[in-house]
């Protein structure tokens, strides 16, 4: 599903990733761990096409992603759902509109969109808060909105960058169970985290990054 071959990335003189080779199978759940600054976010960004690797090759669903034209990147991203530590919600849009936004972007009609947003709201347990603005929600609730937005387009890949970074234990477990259920429906999930508790409670394959180099645990 996702194959990286000798991928490296520098920011100026700073080597963030060094010769990373990785193979993630379809439907797999993978953790990327490591201390802050180890390159976890950069690795997810490369898969997401947010930054371009300086060296190496990357195949996603058989496509050579590093050779994608800029105009093709938005269409590639529609196959991926992303979740961040800081949620990245639109502060002036309601919960409903934040989730619906991902559908509007890909041109889904209103009738179908309403049905899908409603299902996504139900899935993350926020139907009763659909008309609120994100800032009036708790951190856990905001993250659930972000997950609903990431999942609504039924992506084949889900990337989560420290999704439980700002959340307490119980809420973190709830968030992880949402990723688990998406994974059980067939999505490939990659979670970058240094939260040992969630790894312990939801054990899966782990890749550890240390000073930009990958070590399989």
């Amino acid at each position: 599903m996702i194959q990286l071959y000798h991928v490296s990335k520098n920011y100026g003189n700073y080597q963030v990733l060094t010769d990373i080779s990785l193979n993630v199978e379809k439907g797999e759940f993978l953790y990327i761990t490591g201390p802050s600054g180890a390159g976890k976010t950069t690795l997810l960004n490369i898969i997401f096409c947010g930054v371009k690797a300086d060296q190496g090759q990357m195949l996603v669903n058989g496509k050579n992603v590093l050779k994608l034209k800029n105009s093709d990147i938005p269409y590639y991203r529609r196959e991926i759902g992303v979740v961040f530590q800081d949620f990245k919600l639109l502060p002036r849009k309601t919960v409903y509109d934040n989730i619906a936004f991902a559908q509007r972007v890909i041109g889904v009609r209103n009738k179908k969109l309403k049905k899908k947003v409603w299902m996504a709201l139900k899935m993350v347990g926020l139907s009763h808060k659909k008309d609120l603005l994100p800032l009036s929600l708790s951190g856990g609730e905001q993250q659930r909105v972000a997950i609903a937005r990431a999942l609504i387009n039924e992506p084949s890949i889900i990337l989560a960058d420290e999704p439980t970074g700002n959340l307490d234990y119980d809420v973190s477990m709830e968030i992880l169970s949402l990723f688990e259920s998406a994974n059980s429906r067939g999505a490939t999930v990659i979670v970058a985290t240094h939260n040992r508790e969630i790894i312990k409670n939801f054990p899966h394959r782990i890749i550890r990054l240390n000073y930009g180099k990958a070590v399989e645990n």
Partner: protein
Amino acid sequence: MACQLLTCRFFINIVNIFRSIVYAFQEALTSIRVNKGLNAITIGTIAISMTLFGIFFLIFINLQKMAIDLGGKIKVIVYLKDNISQSQIEHLRRNIAFYKEIEKVSYVSKEDALINFKNKLMDKKAILDGLDSNPIPASFIIEVKEGFRTLDDMGRIANGLAGVEGVEEVEYGREWIDRFETFMVFFKLGMGAVGGVLAMGLLFIISNTIKLSVYSRLDEIEIMKLVGATNHFIKGPFIIEGMIQGFTGTIISIMLLFIGYEIIVSKLSPSVIFVFGFSDILFIPSNGIIWLVVSGIFLGFIGSLISLGRILKVRT
């Protein structure tokens, strides 16, 4: 079958484009409603910039009117022979009326010409008292329509009339027209250059103001990119917002210009008329107002496009 499929796809595309435009409009209006402060600054900047441009435009049309008024003084004078008969005069009048370039023809008899000449001489008119006969010839004074006050057209009319029986001489102020034409060429070039520089300055100011509005919403653009929005989808609402800002700013500037114009005309008009010899100070004509509004919308459009261009080049 293939043809039906193509037609079907064509209509689906049209519907999708229409839906995107409606969505972009809704988003632009929401953004204007939500970002009131920033929008007020942008619209205010556009209004001030367009007012400056409008002042330039007002100066331009009034100078142009002055030049046209001066052009109105360009005339063809057909001097007639002393022995010309009344029927020859009528024949000549019909000949002159044949030219489509002619706006007005007036006949000045020998007697009237002498009176006019005496009036011009004022207190020195006594020098004409010793004359036995009237030496001033009768003439036709021809005013030419605005578009034909060129050296070529005037020369053609003059040459055409010079050969007609009963005509002594035809004059049309060849040197004056030549100077006037040169002046108009430089006037238009100069005004075009000033207008061009001013428009570039306006574009720079407006695009930078719109850039502020775009930068304040970088997070929103980033999120749009995260969910796979294409650049067109992201640009749409910003461009429509820029066009609405351009339109509103220009309408405000026209109102400011009109108020300013009314104040100047009511309070300063007599002195300005005296100094510049204007018969009247003009406001921007209706087609000029349409032109200004369209320019304002266009500046908003281009300003947004320039501001967005650099931001959207970045991958995330």
